């Protein structure tokens, strides 16, 4: 809808605008006992390589569903979607993305390093490579030294970092995150946001990020997708003029507040519809 070419070019990484996710007229209707639920309708959106795209909107507007469609965990009922130029299923089979769920969901019977090694074991990496990658990704999320701990020995924030490490351990260029910091307190969240930006800058990954928090969306994203419910659709796409380098106190600058304002207006407009 609003993802017109001008915006897309502006938002894309400096090199070429190589699309990672392309949705056209995407729709998904759940058939439930109480009748059909239109979770997504007419979603047109392109996410380019190296972008950080946030999805924000009221509960039930289809944010999770959209991420799950990209991940081939849900099948669209209308329109089409390509991930790295392939169908979501092909992309999933090629392990094109890492998915971070709202709950850290670490396996309680595995230590932190064993949890991070889980995808590596499944994908058949050699022992030596597993070790090296686990070490590297735990370093990346500042969890070095906690390898041998079990999940219950870590705080909620540390568990969530471990689950991010798990999604980073293999070579997926796309990271899909569904409210990964939703259950954490403000201070921990600020800290993890900072670390996530740093990680994004260092790895050059493409990130799709669902959140309920306006400051979080504005602070992290190069582009903010505002959605509205019943049916779930994209109502606004806001390109962030903020530089890629963002200290935490950027949140007090007028530019930041202005984007936050636009996002809030977009959310209000979406609410006004029903």
């Amino acid at each position: 809808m609003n993802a017109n070419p001008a915006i897309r070019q502006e938002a894309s990484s400096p090199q070429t605008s190589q699309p990672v996710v392309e949705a056209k007229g995407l729709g998904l209707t759940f058939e439930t006992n109480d009748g059909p639920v239109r979770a997504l309708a007419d979603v047109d959106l392109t996410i380019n390589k190296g972008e950080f795209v946030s999805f924000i909107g009221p509960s039930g507007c289809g944010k999770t569903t959209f991420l799950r469609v990209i991940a081939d965990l849900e099948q669209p009922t209308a329109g089409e979607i390509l991930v790295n130029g392939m169908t979501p299923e092909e992309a999933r089979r090629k392990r094109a993305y890492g998915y971070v769920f709202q709950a850290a969901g670490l396996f309680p019977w595995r230590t932190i390093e064993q949890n991070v090694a889980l995808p590596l074991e499944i994908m058949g990496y050699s022992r030596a490579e597993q070790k090296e990658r686990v070490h590297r990704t735990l370093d990346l999320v500042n969890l070095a030294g906690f390898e041998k701990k079990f999940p219950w020995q870590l705080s909620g924030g540390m568990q969530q970092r471990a689950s991010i490490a798990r999604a980073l351990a293999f070579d997926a260029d796309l990271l899909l995150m569904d409210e990964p910091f939703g259950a954490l307190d403000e201070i921990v969240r600020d800290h993890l946001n900072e670390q996530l930006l740093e990680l994004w800058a260092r790895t050059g990954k493409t990130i799709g990020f669902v959140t309920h928090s306006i400051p979080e969306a504005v602070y992290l994203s190069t582009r903010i997708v505002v959605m509205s419910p019943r049916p779930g659709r994209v109502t606004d796409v806001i390109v962030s003029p903020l530089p890629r380098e963002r200290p935490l106190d950027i949140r007090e600058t007028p530019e930041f507040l202005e984007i936050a304002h636009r996002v809030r207006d977009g959310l209000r407009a979406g609410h006004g519809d029903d």
Partner: protein
Amino acid sequence: MTAAAGTAPAGATTPFFRRAVEGKTLPILIVLGVIVLIWYAFTVYLNAPWQIDAYERAGTEWTAADLVRDTMAQERPVLPSPHQVVAEIWKTTVGTRLTSKRNLFYHAWITLSSTLLGFVIGTALGVLLAVGIVHNRAMDKSVMPWVIASQTIPILAVAPMIIVVLNAIGLSGLLPKALISTYLSFFPVVVGMVKGFRSPEAFQLDLMRTYNASGAQTFWKLRWPAALPYLFTSMKVAVAISLVGAIVGELPTGAVSGLGARLLAGSYYGQTVQIWSALFMAAALAAILVGVVGIGQRMVMARMGEKP
């Protein structure tokens, strides 16, 4: 008390006693003491009519003290007294050669061996059925009703048939008895493991899907470890019920050895003391078996990082 104890501050007690008071030991001992007392009371009460009869037939004078003493020392009491049972157990375990057919340990071993064989087969069968039920819709629909139906038939009705049928095809001895244990013990394992294999949450299964994990990988890395706590819980039930199965299996075979055979022989000849000592041996065996499974559970769970 010694001089040393005398110098200790008032109220100081020995570590053992303190442990007993603070821990679970004291309450358990109290309950045990109460049970034994009630038992003694019933011994006197239940055996008194026969004893009074006996006095009258012999024409002897008797006092209440005589009655209490004699009701606890009958040859074939309605209810033997605790010390009679303890003495019988002592006599038939420590007091008899291990290889002797009169040794209670020998009989316990016979029952134990078929219990264990039946339990191992039953657990394996239960796990396999659960794997099938969880992975196959048709099996889920078709097998589960039969599993449940199998347990609605009283084992006492099934046991003789199993023995007879197996004897007819030339199987006798340990295996038929063990199969009765299997018949009972596979059930809690199937039910527990179906629940266990289904215990991973939807998003954990989704996670495996995002890794494009194969069915086998999802099973071994997610379903199986998630089901292990359920396995141990159902194995505790299964091992106890296996013992019941082995004892029941000894009844219709006319077996001469095993705890079931001792129970049967005891009731033929009115040897209540023998019945009770066999019962206690069976109870002790069950407690040990459940305890061993519990120790295995604790060791495995500790390795799997369970919160202590």
